[in-house]
């Protein structure tokens, strides 16, 4: 019951390296939120269905509620806080979500942004149906998805016009001051 068995881990989150000691049972979502103060990653269900807690871990999207913090040792993580450019310019997906009213309460939004970001990297020119499938691992209770699909469609277009600077957004390596 007491906090014993602390493990030392090192994680790079949004380009910044952190060393900390955590209990082995602590979820990555809680490490990010409670230990590192990055509350942009939300916890909706804690059982791997809603996708609100999605972050990128070593270039793959993961549900941070299904990963223990200790499993993220040495990993590179991207959270919503690291999605925009270091200078504050929004990622095309963020622009598109705002433009297309792809959010209402915004609770699911960080998870959608991260999932969609990875999806567009794998499939830069998706059809609407493919987008629907691509984001189907994330639940939204407010928007009815239509505007989210519109937003991802719009972002795909923006990204294809502006390939060079944005395509590696989901795998930012550089230190990201906006992240903390």
């Amino acid at each position, binding site marked *: 019951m007491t906090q014993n068995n602390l493990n030392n881990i090192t994680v790079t989150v949004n380009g910044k390296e952190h060393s900390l000691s955590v209990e082995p049972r602590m979820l990555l979502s809680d490490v990010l939120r409670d230990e590192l103060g990055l509350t942009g990653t939300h916890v909706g269900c804690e059982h791997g269905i809603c996708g609100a807690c999605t972050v990128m871990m070593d270039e793959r999207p993961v549900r941070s509620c299904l990963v223990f913090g200790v499993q993220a040792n040495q990993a590179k993580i991207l959270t919503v806080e690291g999605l925009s450019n270091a200078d504050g310019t929004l990622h095309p997906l*963020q622009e598109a979500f705002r433009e297309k009213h792809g959010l209402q309460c915004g609770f699911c939004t960080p998870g959608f942004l991260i999932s969609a970001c990875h999806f567009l990297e794998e499939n830069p020119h998706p059809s609407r149906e493919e987008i629907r499938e691509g984001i189907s*691992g994330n639940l939204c209770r407010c928007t009815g998805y239509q505007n989210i699909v519109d937003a991802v469609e719009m972002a795909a277009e923006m990204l294809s016009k502006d390939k060079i600077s944005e395509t590696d957004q989901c795998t930012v390596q550089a230190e990201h001051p906006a992240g903390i």
Partner: protein
Amino acid sequence: MRYLGKALPRKEDLRLITGNGRYLADIESKNALHMAVLRSPHAHARIVKIDLTKAKQFPEVIAAVSFEQLGAMGKKLPMLVPHPALRSETPYPLAKDKVNYVGEPVAVVVATSRYIAEDALELIDIEYDALPVVGNPEDALKADAPLLHMEVGSNTAAMIIEKTGDAQSAFANADVVIRSKFRIGRCSVQPMESRGVLAIPDTLGNLTIWDSTQSVHTIRRLIVGFLGLEEQQVRLIAPDVGGGFGAKNRLYPEEILVPWLALQLGRPVKWVGDRMEDLMASYQERDQWHEAEMALTKDGKILAVRDHFLADNGAYTPFGIVVPYTTAITIPGPYKVPNFYAQMTCVYTNKTPVAPYRGAGRPQGVFVIERLLDLAAEQLGLDKAEIRLRNLIHTKEMPYDTGLFSRDGRKMIYHSGDYPQAFQQALDMIDYNEFQKLKEDYRKEGRYLGIGLANYIEMAGLGPFEGAKVKVDPVTGKVTVSTGAGSQGQGHETTLAQVCAERLGVSFDDVKVVGGDTGAIEYGVGTWASRVAVAGGNAVSGAALKVRDKALKLGGLVLQADPMDLDIVEGMIQVKNDPDRNVSLQKIAMISVDPSRSTQRHLPEGSHLPDDFQPGLEESFYYYPSALTFANGTHAAIVEVDPSTAAIKVHRYIVVDDCGKVLNPMIVKGQVIGGVAQGLGNAIYEEMIHDNNGQVLTATYMDYMIPTSMEVPDIQLGHMESPDPNNPEGVKGCGEGGVVPVPAVINSAIDDALSSFGIYTTETPVSPFKLWKLLKKTKGEEKTDGN
């Protein structure tokens, strides 16, 4: 109009898309303690003993509490919406003697971390003696049924009749009478953010409470009343709230326990519910059993509707009889029903309590009348669109008095809208006339397509009031609008700013809206029942106009002009014919609070502020709606069913809605589409299932199915706009219409698709599994006379 009616992008989005939103769980409080709740695993059981000793033995565990330790707090939670016919029962903060539903709070542990608090729950030694379970309202009313509440003396919480005309003789004289039973399943609300509370005490016994609630003022009033505090000792703030839909609109036990513990322990205490807690213990809705009948002439005119229904209310009545009452008065909808009789019986069962969820009783009412109309059409050999056209209220018949009364005692009178036109527009959009051919083409390929239709009325604009305070900052000239009605995603920071900018005459960019904070405005009611555009919008408009008046008066003094000749444009007061003669609102605000220095500079010689002048450009306005508003609309859908698997696929979904004047069309569209998605969940996928012992079988998202992007199709919107004549801004509210008629439409379409199997569905949700069972009953055989 510079701002009203425009699809301006939302002000709230920037923080939410960058991870800067602050939801309850994100609010930091140094050295906060964490509360975890032990919940009943039984639907009905006597508590024999609770031993907290083991749970308390760890230094990280600061407190463990069951009913016994509550002391003076061991009293029942207040009742929110009383009714003379209601034998109300509300829960204690922690169960006393006996538990009445799975998930009911029994004990809490407070520890230095949530992980440890949850560990300690396991160490609570508790013994239950299981009691027989009341699983559904029909059983609950049997003579030998076990009682939930001895004091009530029966499981009937209330029995109420709502009527108009003389249904009995109308039925006696009718050409045709049709009857059917309907069962509307129990849904959970499921905002993506679960509920949570954080209370931070100071050393003087004051509290700041952060609460993911829809109604900050009401909840504060209830908390201070319960804890014996004074209102000004508590500031209650709802931060960013991750969806509400009704689930966060009432006082729950946790909202008492957290502040009480914070005061007891002298430290911040935080509780954030998890998904399983939310599925078991956040109040639920729908759950009704109807026996309804309709009397008609042979050409399909409705003569009367009669309905007896049971509302399965669950274990307590925290929100009175609002849900069944709303169902009853919603049944006639946009149709002429001259004689009407509804008898509702609100019943206690061993389930989670029922309280309003988006739509709040309306989907059930619409389901009943629309299903009856489909059945009547079939019986009379009429087309289902035709029978509806024959009964819709026409504009020339307005104001149309339904003869019924809303729950706040107001007459249900429809004042504006063109129901047949909305219906026709939907028929056109979905190519209703071409549909038979489409259906036949599909049938040739062995596929089964059906079309469904439903109309609805969305009663909104409920009072008693909403307030707004509009203030021009004397230093920056920026404008703050404070309102009691916070947002759970509806976009009030944007729409209310549009109203203020328009009415005051300032730039939209210069207006900031603060909602959901008792510190920001003295009185407020909250965000529910599609009431904010009506009550809140008109309050903002009223306050903005008061500020405008005052600014023009002082502006007239400064510019030496008649206030009548002045205008305010983008924050500048200017002479209408001579805009170069102007003064900024900021300067006027400054003069008004700092006249000792400013007046000498700005007021003409010899003039001074009037004796009765009040400082500041700041005005409050509380708007009491004089009448309810009634938005209306039509939904239509084309659905495909595979009779071999009972899979249901929605091909097209059309909505035509009329919510009066639109403040921001983009936001209205978002509300409508989001509503339809929830409606599709209610119609096809979502149901709380219990076993015979009242055990919840749908306590995770593996079992309780929220629709994903694969289940919700693109929705096409048509639009009409008939301003409401009774409120200055002409708005009607749009928060619920999207969800209300969906189950009726889906069942209608499914029946049409499977008409050759002779299927008539009377249940919602009509899940693929239920449909498959129905098809099995027909042995999957088509009737030979089917087409």
